[in-house]
């Protein structure tokens, strides 16, 4: 890292959850509302301590449910506040109708999601069912692989959300327990650097008695569609804004983010696609496979919505085989959501053989050997042309 960039930050060891709380404190939010749920609880526990100890001048609103938490944050955001909430699993499911209100009202709310499986059966461990469940709610969606990415994305989330060309809520997801509870070293920007980068919120809706407006209005056949079309455009605008924010953040921090993270892809014939902490495991597996002469690389998904169409098209059209690893199942679908995003991106000009693997549900462990197994089986299935369905890995009976 460049000496100038180093001077702007400090090395710190925190859990993923505390890294998020630290970023939110530095972002100097005005209002936080959340309801505790494993494995997210420590985010808001730490934030409430910051508020109590006077380290963060914010209003912390205790509520009785996640539905109320997001609703409280929606109200505060309409009043012009910089706002934050955090949740996981059932909590996110309970927020569902308010998710659409937040994006439809064009509120720059930032939410942390410690990704966790959905009930039933009840399970507190990591998969991506909650994250993909909010796919069409109109939120910008990022996934941090470890504490560093999650911290950086949380800071950048406020900048992206509040850009006047965007004004949409942003979710920053990271793997429950694996990232949320593991203590790791990372670089945090100094307080004054974040302050200068983010400034104060000046954009978006702001309830003002001198300039009275109605929010949350009824819009029927004659206008609802226009509001939604405009919201769709905001997500399209976000592509450019995210690129700009990544660039500016890179200049400050020395960490240059891209929507899709590549590892050993330049001459790869086969590409393994993953999201979350598995990306690191897959890199390790690929390093081993490369030593044995396998031409394989990894693509990690950092930005899921807006889906980076151009980047994905350029990248994925290069490979002979793509093996998608998904920690989510979409019962009855052709395959998982990421598989479908990639095929839709490449259509109709592709010769790539694509294989989808559902793995790791409910926190089922995925060691490097698991990725190697998936690669070997995926390669074989691809070469036999058996691409007609999604496959399972790591479940007894397969």
């Amino acid at each position: 890292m460049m000496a100038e960039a180093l001077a702007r930050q400090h090395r710190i060891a925190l859990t993923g959850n505390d890294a998020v709380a630290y970023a939110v404190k530095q972002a100097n939010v005005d209002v936080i509302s959340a309801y505790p749920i494993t494995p997210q609880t420590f985010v808001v526990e730490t934030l409430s301590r910051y508020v109590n100890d006077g380290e963060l001048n914010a209003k912390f609103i205790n509520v009785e449910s996640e539905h109320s938490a997001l609703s409280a944050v929606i109200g505060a955001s309409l009043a012009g506040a910089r706002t934050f909430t955090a949740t996981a699993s059932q909590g996110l499911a309970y927020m569902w109708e308010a998710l659409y209100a937040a994006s439809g009202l064009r509120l720059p709310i930032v939410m942390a999601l410690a990704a966790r499986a959905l009930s039933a059966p009840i399970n507190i461990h990591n998969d991506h069912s909650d994250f993909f469940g909010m796919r069409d709610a109109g939120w910008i969606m990022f996934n941090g692989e470890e504490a560093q990415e999650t911290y950086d994305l949380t800071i950048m989330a406020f900048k992206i959300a509040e850009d006047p060309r965007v004004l949409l809520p942003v979710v920053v997801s990271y793997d429950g327990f694996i990232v949320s509870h593991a203590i790791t070293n990372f670089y945090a920007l100094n307080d004054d650097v974040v302050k200068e980068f983010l400034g104060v919120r000046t954009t978006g809706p702001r309830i003002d008695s001198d300039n009275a407006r109605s929010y949350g209005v009824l819009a029927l056949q004659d206008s609802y569609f226009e509001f939604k079309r405009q919201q769709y455009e905001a997500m399209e605008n976000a592509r450019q804004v995210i690129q700009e924010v990544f660039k500016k953040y890179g200049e400050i921090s020395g960490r240059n983010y891209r929507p899709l993270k590549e590892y050993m892809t330049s001459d790869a014939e086969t590409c393994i696609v993953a999201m979350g902490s598995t990306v690191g495991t897959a890199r390790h597996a690929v390093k081993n496979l490369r030593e044995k002469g396998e031409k394989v690389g990894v693509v990690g998904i950092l930005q899921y919505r807006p889906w980076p169409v151009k980047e994905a098209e350029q990248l994925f059209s290069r490979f002979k085989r793509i093996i998608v690893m998904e920690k989510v199942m979409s019962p009855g679908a052709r395959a998982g959501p990421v598989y479908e995003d990639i095929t839709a991106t490449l259509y109709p000009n592709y010769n790539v053989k694509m294989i989808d693997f559902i793995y790791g549900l409910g926190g089922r462990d995925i060691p490097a050997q698991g990725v190697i197994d998936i690669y070997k089986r995926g390669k074989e299935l691809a070469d036999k042309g058996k691409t007609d369905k999604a496959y399972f890995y790591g479940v007894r009976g397969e």
Partner: protein
Amino acid sequence: MSTTVTWREIDLGGSVAGGTSEKYKTGNWRVERPVIDYEKCVRCLICWLYCPEPAIIRKGNEVKIDYDYCKGCGICAEECPKKAITMVPEEI
């Protein structure tokens, strides 16, 4: 709301300027219109009290239906103690 406004210029996030509900004439939702027989009307103002819109305009003790906003719910006719209000089908 004007039906000529496109998605490019429509206000952000489904918000509208204050006071615009007056421009949103809801009278065309009506299937039946209330008609007051002023011969029978005793100016008790019960209809004015009960109208949920409120689409009954009162001046002193005189009442008049505001057909720009009356949705034709019929509560006034139901509540009138003198049966002075009749619901008449709207012509299509």
